[in-house]
């Protein structure tokens, strides 16, 4: 397609160029479509599905490694939760997952009536709660301090790394009003971001019980198991040190169910608050 062959398609400005080309192309498509007019409805749908796949074939190709990773290393282990309801012998290989006998809720009953249950459970909750508290006071202080820095480079650099300063926008009103710096921070900036902080806090609740076990694993010892043993470290000890695979998976499933329920509840709550906020 060039100017000499199709002079009425190529106008003089870019816009008419584009519309001219579009007209030309749509004519081609119409003519091409007429060739397929003999197909039935189903035939057209099937053709358009594969046509779409071919059209976006690079994008689908891009999706393949990611989806493969998720399926193999995230979803297949999730199916492994069924060993919590079976009696898995430790040294038998992957087929043993399918061949072991079902024991129902035995491991859960064993866990709940064990000597460790209450301590481990309450330690998990306490440590998660403390982590939430610290995570929400220190970053706010840091964000407010960073807001006072006038260097744009530093602000941009930090903004691309952490999320909190994103909510701390520049407060012009307070400086117009002539309020002192500290007053500005407490009376204007904080209320502006308090809603965002609350939503983020609520959404963190469901996630925070899954975190922090690596530090605990590094720093604890039998002398301090009473206060530092949490569900994750207990799973590690019972499962990999004592080879009680099914039992440890049952404890892990217990924690996952609690976490999942918390996430559902807190997300609903956050959504409800967000909707309310839109109407106030």
């Amino acid at each position, binding site marked *: 397609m060039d100017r000499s062959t199709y002079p009425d398609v190529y106008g003089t400005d870019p816009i008419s160029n*584009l519309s001219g080309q579009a007209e030309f192309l749509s004519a081609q498509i119409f003519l091409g479509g007429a060739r397929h007019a003999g197909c039935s409805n189903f035939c057209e749908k099937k053709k358009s599905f594969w046509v*779409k796949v071919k059209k*976006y*074939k*690079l*994008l*689908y190709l*891009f*999706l393949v*490694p*990611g*989806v493969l*990773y*998720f399926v193999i*290393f*995230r*979803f*297949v*282990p*999730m*199916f*492994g*939760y069924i*060993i919590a309801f079976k009696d898995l012998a430790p040294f038998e*290989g*992957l087929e043993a*997952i399918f061949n072991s006998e079902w024991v129902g809720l035995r491991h859960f009953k064993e866990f709940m009536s064990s000597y460790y249950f209450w301590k481990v459970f309450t330690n998990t909750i306490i440590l998660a709660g403390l982590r939430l508290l610290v995570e929400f006071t220190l970053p706010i202080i840091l964000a407010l301090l960073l807001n006072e820095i006038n260097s*744009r*480079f530093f602000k*941009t*650099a930090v903004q*691309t*790394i952490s999320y909190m300063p994103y909510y701390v926008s520049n407060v012009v009103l307070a400086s117009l009003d002539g309020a002192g710096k500290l007053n500005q921070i407490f009376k204007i900036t904080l209320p502006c971001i308090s809603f965002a902080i609350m939503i983020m806090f609520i959404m963190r609740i*469901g996630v925070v019980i*899954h975190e922090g076990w*690596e530090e605990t*694993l*590094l720093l604890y010892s039998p002398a301090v198991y009473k206060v530092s043993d949490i569900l994750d470290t207990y*799973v*590690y000890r019972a*499962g*990999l040190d004592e080879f009680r*695979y099914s039992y*440890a*998976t049952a404890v*892990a*499933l217990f924690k*996952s169910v609690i*976490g*999942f329920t918390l*996430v559902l509840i807190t997300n609903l709550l956050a959504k409800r608050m967000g909707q309310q906020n839109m109407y106030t």
Partner: protein
Amino acid sequence: MFIVLMSSFLSQEEISRRGTFILIPQVFDPTAYQMLLAEGSSIYNAYGVTIMRVACGTVTQLFFTCTMAYALSKKYLPGRNLVIAMINVAIVIPVPLIPLFLLVRGVGLYDNFWSMILLFAINSVYIFIMKAFYQQLPDELEEAATIDGCNQIQLFLQVVLPLSLPSIATVGMMYAVWHWNEWFYSSLFIVENSRQPLQNIMRGIIINASGTDLALPVGNLPPAETIKCAVIIISVVPILCVYPFVQKYFAKGFLVGSVKA
């Protein structure tokens, strides 16, 4: 850090002479360093493994993350919502440890360098970060490039990627730091001493301060604290030296990104 540096030079006889809390040693005794940095020491191997791991791991992760995020950023792609729902489910339900262990053993990645890299090829949070970045690139850019005659792969490689360098740098840095610090899963899946990354060797030495995996002279052993401090210094100083240079490169990247935005 200063105390650790000073403590790494203490000798046993000085501790017995002056008591345990010593700020600056009178005699700088480098025996711990001689021991740890000796010929057959496992620290050199461990450094190699960790550096390889950070390099391969970051590249792999960036490849997986950026391609998937780019595909997911196109709203018109059929099936996109299904994949995003899948990622959300994967975030909410954490991977259980024992089934993961059984899977790794069954697949044959046990005691294998690639287990450290493939098991964590994508961090879901960074997919959403990159996806948000790609969505914020203007559509006209891609339309203009397509009209100019780009095919899809050229569009990605020559138009989108160079623009997203600041974002890639940020995500890549976070992935790299994660790889450098990660020790738990490599302690589970890697048994052979020569394949262990630095953090694991360090942890082994600190826990087992008699250092049975090092070639030690039997007499004249420095005290446990000294060995521990020397290990800490050895694993931290190189990264401290490298970081300022890397920081400059990233700073330039951030500036470029902010000007474009």
